[in-house]
């Protein structure tokens, strides 16, 4: 059985390490915050100017001056700090964020990502996505493997790019792929329980390499 949509963030959370500074994208990646392993100290950064996102507020704690990048009301954890957008992106651009997890419309076999614009449709803007994929040390895409049956892992992105050769890892309901920078191809390292290599190949357009030992995704 492939993972469910709700299980993808659980697998993604296993990439977190104690002390990491992490930025989570809007949508499915935000749910990774619910699965931070107990006892692990992870600091979540919000690009609108907060390091140390806390849980969503109780009704009595709601503060219009305290929101995340998805414009949701949030709280700040003890030890948090506030800063301007320039400082926030200096932090991102300067390589001071250990990891970001974001969604994608397409990822190419060389690690390009497209997730902000579909030609012919209304473009809402890239927000901070281009800065994050260009600046963060480890960039993970957590997404469903296909969109309405169409492959999202492609040879070359047909959509306008968000970033070039910047994706280090892809986690889907079918498998885990890790970029090998020397070969410039993803290496399949894990399969979902009950999922075969052929299942992945059938849902993937991109060329990829298969690791010598392929593990099973645990959730």
């Amino acid at each position, binding site marked *: 059985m492939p993972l469910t949509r709700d299980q993808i963030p659980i697998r993604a959370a296993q990439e977190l390490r104690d002390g990491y500074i992490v930025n989570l994208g809007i949508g499915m990646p935000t749910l990774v915050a619910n699965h931070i392993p107990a006892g692990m100290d992870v600091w979540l950064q*919000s*690009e*609108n*100017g*907060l390091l140390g996102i806390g*849980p*969503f*507020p*109780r*009704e009595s704690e*709601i*503060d*219009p*001056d*305290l*929101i*995340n990048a*998805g*414009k*949701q*009301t*949030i709280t*700040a954890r003890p030890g948090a700090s*506030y*800063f*301007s*957008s*320039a400082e*926030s*992106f*200096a932090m*991102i*651009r*300067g*390589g001071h964020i250990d990891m970001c997890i974001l969604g994608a419309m397409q990822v190419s076999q060389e690690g*390009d990502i497209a997730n902000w*614009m579909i030609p012919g449709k*209304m*473009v*809402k*803007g*890239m*927000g*901070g*996505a*281009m*800065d994050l994929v*260009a*600046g963060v040390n480890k960039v993970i895409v957590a997404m469903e493997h296909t969109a309405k049956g169409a492959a999202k892992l492609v040879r070359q992105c047909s959509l*306008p*790019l*968000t*970033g*070039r*050769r910047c994706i280090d890892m892809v986690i889907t309901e079918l498998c885990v792929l890790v970029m090998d920078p020397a070969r410039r191809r993803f290496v399949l390292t894990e399969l979902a329980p009950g999922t075969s290599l052929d299942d992945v190949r059938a849902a993937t357009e991109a060329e990829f390499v298969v690791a010598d030992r392929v593990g099973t995704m645990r959730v």
Partner: protein
Amino acid sequence: MSSKKVYGTPAEAFADLRQRGVLRDGITVMTGGFGLCGLPENLIVALRDSGAKGLTCISNNAGVDDWGLGLLLKTRQIRKMISSYVGENAEFERQYLAGELEIEFNPQGTLAERIRAGGAGIPAFYTATGVGTPVASGKEIREFYRPGDDTTHHNRKPAVEGTFAQTQQRLTPPEAGRAQRREYILETGLFADLALVKAWKADEFGNLVFRRTARNFNAMMATAAKFVIAEVENLVPVGQIDPDHVHVPGNYVDRIVRTVPSKKIENRTVTKG
């Protein structure tokens, strides 16, 4: 009022701006805020009421249909937006698709840094953000080592004089493959005719203190315009803000208005249980 910078209402703060040549049709205006958080909402209403048209607005977002810059879209006072994300505005979408409104999308960090740079007198800077994307189109691209990756540049002089090409070769880090040059694109600084910002607290000199995530673009925009108006929730006499707690020094701010914030929330999210 002891301070020449303090005005009673946003309308009063705008009253003589045309006469002073600050406000004209076609000027560039920066407005702070991230969504509705830290939005100079009452100053935006005053800008609408001023009737200035053909504006270029530099703002991370475009407000919502009935608040923020959405008000100026409704009245067709905006010709062009420079923004990173404009998702929550149906009128924006309509005008854009009808070709009535021009939009220049900037990556959010590039937009923030362009404003910071403009305020700091830096005409342009290189960034890796947007390389290989539509954002890089038409811009100068140059290769550099990422800061910190070039271990030879700072501490070692080339042993012998040589041609530029030879020098470049010697500067290749010894552990080839570890550090590589990467491409950067040249982005320019932004400086506006007028900036409208929102702060939590100010003194009568214009020293500003922001609150929580309402700081966002306000801090840089206050430094990057010929004329800066701040609306604040709390106004105190000079000397009442600890100099260590000032986020934006008062010299950047031309006018201050105390306003009552609407504290609107776009996406109210609470913890369950």
